[in-house]
Structures are given as structure tokens and as C-alpha cells.
């Protein structure tokens, strides 16, 4: 049995092969032959703009939705053929916190514990542990509707961890959170990852995938358009770039220095007075540029060595920025605008 799970010498906890899911009689292809896999004990970041098919992917893998075709296994179990067995080993925290708002955090966790067939006592012990782990002990006995967005998401995540799932799915865990809520969520997720959980996480935030994921698949319009480690994806787009902002009068002189050291052409943003150029030698080039500019008595106003962001990755693969995709997707009839949902 175990041998079946071994591919490429590594254990795959999640395998999706050629998933297709269409809506509106085939007019909307939410998933268009999507394949991906997650190695045991690793984090896969599924990165894509709004409408790319992230939620649909998670819903298929967590047995909430049957694909039109293709097949998928989680922990070696087929999600369509044996959904109940899959549900025993997964945890899911959806795009919007799914909790009973009128009940307290404590009530919610105990209820979900009971639904995972823990005894009353076990459910209470586990609820207490989780509330502590997620720093929610002080608010445990307040109704969820008094919780902040970040607290809700943390409790939602806690609810998905009740039986220590083998595979965890998190759909846009930080969307809609303020920066502080996002940082707290990242810390929580990072500590889970250290504990060895297998995680599939979706995000629209390029930085988030970079921070949390071992491997990234970039999806757009239901298809995987790139996959690799964050570093591999960046390498595909090009190496590091040197960016420097100088006084207007120094632009030409500075540009000459940079182009000589970088050994190539540079681009200039006149408005921002920013010169940028790809460099090979990274920090060495930076030091060299600083020395030469200093010798010429040119004082840079800002100076940075930038690794390409995943935004750049998206741009170079699809030819359009992630944000554009959001706009084009908003043209499609969709019920997303309802309520406070973003």
C-alpha cells in the first residue's frame, strides 16, 4: 500500500491530476486540466489572482466538490471514491472563517471536537490546548461576533487542527486581515510547518507564498502556469537588480557608472530619478558602485539590491500583472460582490 504513494522517491501527500471543473455549462472553466502535488511534510503555495481557481482546487481536494474529470488523492485516498476516509485525515480552513458567530470560541471548538468524535472530555481538553496555542484563551468565552478578523481566522484555523490532520488546506488564510493580523497568522502557520504538517495554502499575495511555502505553483484561469521553489521562479525571471535614486543632475553620471559595473544596459525612471539594472555579482556590484559614486561625489538618495518579487514572476510568465487578471475576471458574471466578501 505504501509503495503506491511513492513517486520520484518522495511521498506525495496530495496528488491532483488533470482536474477539470466547469460552470455555466462549460462557459467558465474554473479548473482547466490542473495538476499538482504536495510532498509529505512540505508546504505548497498555490498562488494566483482572484478567480484563478484556487478555491475550486481546495474544494475538490477537500471533497466538497466533485471534479468534472481528472482525479485526486489525499494521503493516498481518492477524494471522489472515498470522501469520508479523506475527511478523517484533513483539516480545512476556508477563505472565510466558518464559525458559529453567536457561540463563543470555546463552544465552537468543543462542538467541532465532538463532531470529530472526541469524547466530551477529550473535546474540552483539546479546545483548551488550541486556545492556548493560538493565544485566544482570554477571549475564549466571548461570542465570535465580537472577535477581530485576525482572531476569527486563528480560531477557524484552530478548528481545522482539532484531530491533528495529516494534510491541512488553507484557502487565502490572510486575505482581508490588517498587517498585524497577517503577521500573527504567518507566525502561527510557520510554527505549524515546523511541527511537520503537510500544507497546501492558497494566496494572492506573492510575498506570502515566498514566506511560507517550500514550493509554489502559479495558477491562472484554472491552469498551472509555473511551478518551482520561490528561488527557481525568481531565477526564471532574471537575477538581482540594482536600484539607485540620485539627484536629477547626477542621473547621467551615475548611469554610466552603473552600466559599466553591471556590464549591460540600465533603465531610468525620470520621474522617480531611479536607475535600475540587472547585476550578476550581487552585493559585490553594490559595493563597487557605492565606491565609484563616492569617488565622483555623487550621493545616492536611495540604494537597493532587489531580488525580483513574485509579482515580477507573474508578469514575466503571463505577460500581464496579477492585478490585471483581477479586473478581467470581474467582467465575468460572478456573485462575489455580495456582502462584505472581497
Amino acid at each position, binding site marked *: 500500500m505504501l509503495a503506491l504513494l511513492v513517486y520520484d522517491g518522495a511521498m506525495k501527500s496530495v496528488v491532483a491530476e488533470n482536474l477539470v471543473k466547469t460552470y455555466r455549462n462549460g462557459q467558465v472553466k474554473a479548473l482547466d486540466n490542473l495538476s499538482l502535488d504536495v510532498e509529505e511534510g512540505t508546504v505548497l503555495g498555490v498562488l494566483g489572482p482572484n478567480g484563478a481557481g484556487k478555491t475550486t482546487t481546495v474544494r475538490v481536494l477537500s471533497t466538497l466538490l466533485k471534479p468534472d474529470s481528472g482525479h485526486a488523492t489525499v494521503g493516498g485516498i481518492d477524494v471522489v471514491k472515498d470522501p469520508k476516509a479523506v*475527511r478523517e485525515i484533513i483539516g480545512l480552513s476556508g477563505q472565510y*472563517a*466558518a464559525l458559529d458567530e453567536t*457561540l463563543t470560541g470555546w463552544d465552537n471548538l468543543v462542538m467541532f471536537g465532538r*463532531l470529530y*468524535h472526541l469524547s466530551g472530555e477529550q473535546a474540552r481538553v483539546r479546545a483548551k490546548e488550541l486556545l492556548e496555542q493560538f493565544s485566544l484563551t482570554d477571549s475564549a468565552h466571548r461570542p465570535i461576533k465580537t472577535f477581530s478578523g485576525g482572531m476569527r481566522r486563528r480560531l477557524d484555523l484552530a478548528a481545522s487542527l482539532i484531530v491533528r490532520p495529516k494534510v491541512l488546506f488553507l484557502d487565502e488564510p490572510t486575505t482581508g486581515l490588517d498587517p498585524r493580523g497577517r503577521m500573527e497568522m504567518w507566525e502561527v502557520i510557520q510554527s505549524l510547518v515546523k511541527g511537520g504538517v503537510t500544507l497546501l495554502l492558497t494566496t494572492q499575495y506573492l510575498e506570502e507564498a515566498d514566506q511560507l511555502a517550500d514550493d509554489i505553483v502559479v495558477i491562472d484561469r484554472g491552469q498551472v502556469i509555473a511551478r518551482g521553489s520561490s528561488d527557481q521562479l525568481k531565477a526564471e525571471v532574471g537575477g538581482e537588480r540594482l536600484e539607485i535614486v540620485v539627484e536629477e543632475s547626477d542621473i547621467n553620471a551615475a548611469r554610466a557608472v552603473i552600466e559599466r559595473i553591471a556590464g549591460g544596459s540600465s533603465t531610468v525612471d525620470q520621474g522617480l530619478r531611479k536607475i535600475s539594472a540587472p547585476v550578476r555579482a550581487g552585493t559585490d556590484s553594490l559595493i563597487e558602485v557605492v565606491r565609484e559614486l563616492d569617488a565622483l561625489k555623487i550621493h545616492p538618495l536611495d540604494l537597493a539590491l532587489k531580488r525580483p518579487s513574485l509579482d515580477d514572476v507573474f508578469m514575466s510568465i503571463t505577460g500581464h500583472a496579477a492585478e490585471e487578471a483581477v479586473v478581467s475576471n470581474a467582467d465575468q458574471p460572478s456573485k462575489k460582490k455580495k456582502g462584505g466578501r472581497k
Partner: protein
Amino acid sequence: MSSVTHSVSDALVITKRQLQQLVRVPEVLIFNTIQPVMFVLLFRYVFGGLGAGIPGGYVQLLMPGIFVQTVTFTLAATAQGLAQDMEKGLIDRFRSLPISRSAVVMGRTLGDGLLNIVVLVVMGVAGYIVGWRPTSSLLHIAAGFILLLFFGYALSWCGVFAGLISKDARVVANVSFLFTFPLTFLSNAFASTTTMPKPLQYFAEWNPVSTMVAATRQLFGFHNTFGVTAHSYPSEHPIVTSLFYMVVLMAIFMPLSVRRYKSANSR
């Protein structure tokens, strides 16, 4: 534990959650009981004059009418509750848990049934205070209340289905209400159907609300003087007809609802 005991215990967890909600938001229970009690008082004193010639007065016929009307509104309550769970994504979460496919809807209908017990007790007491005195045996009175609970339970299953397909709690509550409210008035619940236009009389005769009202009046020991227009089957055999309606409703909506739940898509 076997899967059957699991299904039952899972459903009870859902029911317990609903009772916890009532503790956390007592307004729901208060409103749910104040409204029918208000109806009891309004009808009792505004239309009391209709009872000329009725042994024991209008209130004897009114109370079964209001009992039935109140349990009829269970449909809207259940529909709203489920649609809310759909909206909040809770149904998605429940569906991602290793619990039986009927647990959530079973638990919900059971919870709404328990709520009806509380409401009926409060109304019964209010009715007693304003002069309602059933004349039948305790056994018959109990049977009357059980029939009312069973009717509410059957309608609750229609509510489950409505809630699962609508996904919008406010809309489905309003639509369900718009559907059930006229039903409770196009009946023998508050006045004689004999003054209605002929076609409406026939409708009222077969309306499950009327058969339920006639059945409970009978079980509480009163002759149903409101609306025996024709010697039709439903007016001659209201208990059997009512039971038939309930069985049919449940035979249709229980499997439909469970099926719908299995593929419920909150978006």
C-alpha cells in the same frame, strides 16, 4: 461506535449547538414566544364576538388555530437557520468533517422541534389564562400536541430544502413567510370558511392547515364548527388526512434535503 450511533450523536451535537444559540441570544426564544402569545391575546379579545353560540366561547376554537399557525412558521425558521449556515460557510465546514450526511439536517430539524415544545407550552399557558379549556381526556390533549409537533417537524423538512437551495437567509425567510402566512388564513383557523367564495372554500377544505386545525379541535374535545361546507373527506377525517399530508411531505423532502446537502455548494 457504529455508524448509526455516530449519526445520532452527531445530530445531537448540532441540536445542542442550536440550544446553545438560544442561551447566547435569548431574544430569539423571547420573540418566538411573544409573537404567538400576542396573537392569542389579539384574536381572543378582538374577534371574541365571533364566538356567539360556540360552547366555551371563541377562544376554544381559536387556540387550535393559533397553535397550528405557529408551528406552520417552523418552515420559515428552519429555512432561515440553514440558509444562514450556508452563508457563513458553516455547511462547508460540516461537509468537510467525517460525519454522516444526514446529521446536520437531522440535528437542525430536531432543534426546531424542541423549540416548538417550549413555544407550545408557553402558548398553552397563555391560552389557559384567557379561558381556553380543553374538554377531552389528558391522553387526547397530549395526542393533539404531539400531532402539532409532528406537523411542525414535517414542515421543518420543507424548510431545510428551501434553506439549502436559497443560500440567502433573509430572502428565504421572507419567501417562506409569504408562502405560509396566506395558507394559515385561507383556512378554518380563525373564522368559518363558509363565508368565503366557493373556490376558496374548497381550497380551505383541503388546506393542510385546516385539516390540522380540525384535527386538533377534535382532539381537544371541540366540535369543529368552522367550515364544514361539504361533507368532504378532509373535514370528516381530519386526523387521517393530516397524517397523510405529513407523511407525504416527509417522504418527499427528507431524501431531497439529504441529497441536496451532499452537494451543497455555498457559493
